[in-house]
């Protein structure tokens, strides 16, 4: 199948609504791609296939957006997926000040503002 038939944003969102975190992989190179596209970066190969992400990743960097009360502070992170690609997300399930670079995390799909959203939860040590 040629990935030029893929509608990247729509299909990603449809998967997410189905509670599936999907990324793409080039059939020829085996490299993983995120965010979703119609072709592999650099080579232009139009052979990207949707594959289920492991959901495992590591916090590459983190910042906390400081809000004026009553709005709550929240974190914004960059996650390195075990498959290689990097993406922006948020770490939930832990105090806003306790997200550290290097933290191991696992993907989770939640509902926020009525729409499915990919976030990450800390993986307990050991």
């Amino acid at each position, binding site marked *: 199948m040629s990935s030029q038939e893929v509608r990247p944003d729509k299909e990603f969102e449809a998967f997410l609504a189905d509670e599936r975190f999907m990324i793409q992989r080039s059939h020829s190179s085996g490299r993983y791609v995120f965010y979703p596209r119609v072709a592999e970066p650099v080579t232009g190969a139009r052979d990207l296939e949707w594959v289920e992400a492991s959901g495992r990743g590591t916090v590459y*960097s983190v*910042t*906390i*957006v*400081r809000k004026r009360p009553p709005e709550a502070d929240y974190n*914004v992170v960059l996650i390195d997926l075990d498959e290689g690609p990097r*993406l*922006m997300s948020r770490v939930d399930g832990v105090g806003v000040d306790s997200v550290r670079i290097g933290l191991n995390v696992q993907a989770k799909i939640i509902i926020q503002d009525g729409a499915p959203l990919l976030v990450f939860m800390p993986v307990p040590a050991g």
Partner: protein
Amino acid sequence: MSPNTFPRGRTAIVAGATYGIGEAPGYNSLDLATLASLRALDMAGLQPKDVDGLFVVLPSDPFSHLSMAQYFGIHPKVMDNNRTGGSSFQIHAHYAALALAAGECDLALIAYGSNLRTSAGKFASTLQPSIYQAPYKPMIPVSAYALAAARHMHEFGTTREQLAEVAVAARAWANLNPDAFARGPLAVGDCLASRMISDPLTKYDCCLVTDGAAAVIMTRADRAKDHARRPAYLLGAGSATTHSEIASIPDLTVTAAVESGKRAFAHAGVGPSDIDVAELYDAFTITTILFLEDLGFCPKGEGGRFVEKGGIAPKGKLAVNTNGGGLSCVHPGMYGLFTMVEAMEQIMGIAGERQVTDVELALSHGNGGVLSSQATLILGSESTL
């Protein structure tokens, strides 16, 4: 690969000016760009009708070049209005040099104006986040730079005190510049105690939000002396990009300034240790540290230590951001052209109280997006030709 034919020293900035730094109520962005341009043209003894190469960026007008040509009533032969952000102007100078050297135009105007402060009162970002970023509500641009700062601290032990040193040095230079918007005492302790915006960046780690306009005039070297006693010759230029959104930066601690600087220095035939003043786009304190490293003024990871103890302040080891920078002089959204005006003034020897002695070589570096686009110019006096 074909041999590089960058026209080293064959073009020059012969005039440059700013207008409305700080607050300029009642003007739109094009009015301000025009007023800065006219000041620059006056300095060179020229009028709008003499301009046949027009390079301009206005913040919210994708047809800026058409709008300005119309406003001036001119029909330029060469025009550009790139949208790389704050690095646009260094890239304009690069391509203006190529067009001038090729005879495609004879007199280039590079202009910018923005009424960001008095029109909006807050930072109105023109960056449109993708659906893969928007739901996480990063405060763009500051959160993107905060992610870079956090990673730099993690990898190299850079401290918040070192970040603050950048802001304190910028303020010390601003205190020598009557045009600077933020003047007065500022100490490291003030920065550390100020409000956190997006960890680890506080209010004083972030650039100003001001109005302001700038313009420079470029011609071929053979007629530069007709317009300036001491022209600032363009010796080298380079630009590069690594990403648009911060999640796609290959390495948060290394910018495309590595590439843009390398090319600019190669064209110029000089190195970082030859530079007398470095005007580095300081949207945030971390950017100054990154560019000091990436342009080769110090090794990767050493930027924090380089700026300690007034390293880049007046009388420090390197004169950096001598106008006060985006942190303390002016930042109307895209600051890049102001670094070019300041580099020119330092070479011309007209920078007043903040003038660095015997400036022969100046570096001007622009940054666009969220560390996305980097562009570097090397300017020199006649003695460097």
